[in-house]
């Protein structure tokens, strides 16, 4: 027996076929285990949703999360590059199973064009923050300016009372800047935008979908 063990002798475990396909037994089992783990472990997912620009849809979409007891972490809604279509970028912590259920239930809404879910590996992410810091402390403590430069943030406005700092980046960079400035005791105000992102795919799924739908319309 080349593979050893039960494989090749029974038809039940299904492992033989995988082995013949060049996968090792352990690899495929590990892969399955990893998938199971992903399905059931809670992590941050990014939902990208496109809809027609109709009033009232936002509350219908957020209601899907509420009903399944998932809390929205951030939400960004804006016109998309496709005329007439709005884009929602929503982040939430949940399991993969839940994330997939949510997208299907969102997509079921009549005026939703498409709903997809991504992990951070599948997308380029960006987020912006604004910090208002005390000018006297900034002048007194050189570390403040050093931190701003270190984090590649920009000072966009200064007066004698406060300075406004802008930083664009991924969530962890923004929080790191905030934490270090807060330690220096100079933060007066801090605001963050929701996340925006683009997928790493070469094509835009929405355009493909719309082209497909157009074909179906013409076939009628």
């Amino acid at each position, binding site marked *: 027996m080349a593979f050893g063990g039960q494989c090749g002798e029974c038809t039940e475990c299904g492992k033989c076929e995988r082995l013949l396909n060049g996968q090792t037994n352990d690899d495929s089992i590990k892969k399955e285990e990893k998938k199971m783990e992903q399905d059931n472990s809670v992590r941050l997912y990014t939902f990208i949703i496109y*809809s*027609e620009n109709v009033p*009232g849809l936002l*509350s*219908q979409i957020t*209601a899907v999360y509420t*009903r399944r007891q998932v809390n929205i972490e951030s939400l960004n809604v804006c016109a998309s590059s496709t005329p007439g279509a709005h884009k929602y970028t929503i982040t939430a912590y949940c399991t993969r*199973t839940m994330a*997939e*259920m949510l997208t*299907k*239930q969102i*997509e*079921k809404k*009549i*005026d*939703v*064009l498409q709903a997809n879910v991504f992990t951070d590996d599948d997308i380029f992410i960006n987020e912006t923050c604004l910090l208002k810091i005390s000018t006297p402390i900034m002048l007194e403590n050189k570390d403040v300016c050093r931190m701003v430069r270190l984090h590649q943030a920009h000072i966009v406005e200064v007066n004698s009372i406060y300075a406004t700092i802008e930083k664009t980046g991924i969530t962890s960079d923004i929080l790191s800047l905030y934490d270090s400035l807060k330690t220096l005791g100079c933060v007066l105000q801090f605001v963050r935008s929701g996340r925006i992102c683009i997928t790493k795919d070469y094509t835009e799924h929405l355009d493909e979908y*719309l082209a497909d*739908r*157009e074909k*179906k*319309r013409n076939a*009628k």
Partner: protein
Amino acid sequence: MEKITGAEAMMRALENEGVDILFGYPGGSIMPTYDALYDHKKTLNHILVRHEQGAVHAAQGYARVSGKVGCAIVTSGPGATNTITGIADAMIDSTPLVVIAGQVGVAMLGTDAFQEVDVVGVTSPISKWSYQIRRAEDIAWAVARAFYIAKSGRPGPVVLDFAKNAQTGMVEYEPAKADFIRSYDPDPDLNEEEIREAAKMINESVKPFVLVGQGVELGNAREELKAFLEKADMPCGTTFLGLSAIESDHRLNKGILGMHGNLGPNVMTNKCDLLIAVGMRFDDRVTGNLATYAKQAKIIHFDIDRSEFNKNVKVNLSVHGDCKKSLAAVTKLLDKATHTSWIDGFKPYEEKEYQKVIDKALHPTEGPLLMGEVIRKVSEATNNAGIMVTDVGQNQLFACRYFKFTKARSVVTSGGLGTMGFGIPAAIGATFGAPDRTVCLFVGDGGLQMTIQEFGTIMEQGAPVKMILLNNNYLGNVRQWQEMFFSHRYSFTPMLNPNYELIAKGYGIPAKTVVERSELDAAIKEMLATPGPYLLQCAIMEEDNVMPMVPPGANIDEMILEYKSK
């Protein structure tokens, strides 16, 4: 072009959609539309109900038996909120409805005006589509879209919130047609890979079992289902809503699934090697404990609604699409097979259930009347060709178990929402949806009183509803649970009942009460022979239980057949 009012445009738009019957109740904010309706009485038959909830349930009953879209029309505020239960019921049971509610004029919106309520906000989560018509110009488009959405794909209720200024505004009306919405694909293309894989799995299966849901009736796929079952010789069980998707006495129909279903289908769910679900949604009343549900089997799920896949039960293969097409496509690829020994495996369970439960329920020799015997006798008196309408509770569970079906679209029951009070108005609607058929309503003494005002509608319309009141002086199903799971503590379930016969007679409805078993046959005969409506009150044994039963949360194959009160 001639200008007409928005209200008149609404009438023409409804006629354009083929509507010929409306169930409704007028009020302030819908008055212009009712005024226009006055001129359309010949084409739009308006049935005045006695409460707005009745309008929606009647539209549901009409839709369920006719396959057409049911239409209800009510006023704003309380009129609209009274329709909520029916809309939620239609949503969970996939019933095509269009509910038109009046609304205050746009200038008043958001000001807490008299009889103003945020109807779109309230109904969005429980409807397939909810839209506010703010201008007369939008009426033709919105109505066409509403009917298209309600009846296509997985059907459901649509709400049109009709602002008063849109009703009175002048418009050049042109009929609109909706058969395409780019964000909504009600008839998805079949995936050939899925079809091939499904056929392969079925061909390889030695113990296949099919779960039949209402999707088969909604998709008009009864013939396709039968061909599918017969070619591969596969036994099936049905959900409550799928009861008339296949004849009750079909060789391969093994009975009802779930909590109060039959023993065979429930046990065999956990013995089959392939479970094939068609147009059903694995409701918790059907599956019991999910952790032990059909774990030994591979599962295929046919559905038109993608969001149902892997929602409650993880499946090995989902087949997305209209089951009329997908079943036919898979059937083509099936090998002709016979599964005689597998099918024979149902017999011992059928015999056991007959002996321990069914025989006792249908053929008692002493004691008060039982629901089961009454229902079966009524069913047989219609040659099993009647329409069964039920309320909710023991009357519903017994009716679903013991009524028999030979014809399509014969089940009108509130499955998902379990709405007490559904029965009477739904039965009224059914008489209009299927005027040539016998409509039998089974209702308890609890549910009857929830919509008893619709006796007025029955009286006015002469609606030939054969009402069988199964009176046990209890809220029977809750009492049963109290007996079984709450230590016999009958917390507010005994009912002090009025004289129903007298009430019916007050509405001009012929009525009779049966206490003795020996009078039952003649009474049923008289009820069916009497033209128009009839109330047959049966004095039912007070503390009877619906058996068998899968206790809540228990494994589906662990049915209790007999329960002896402690």
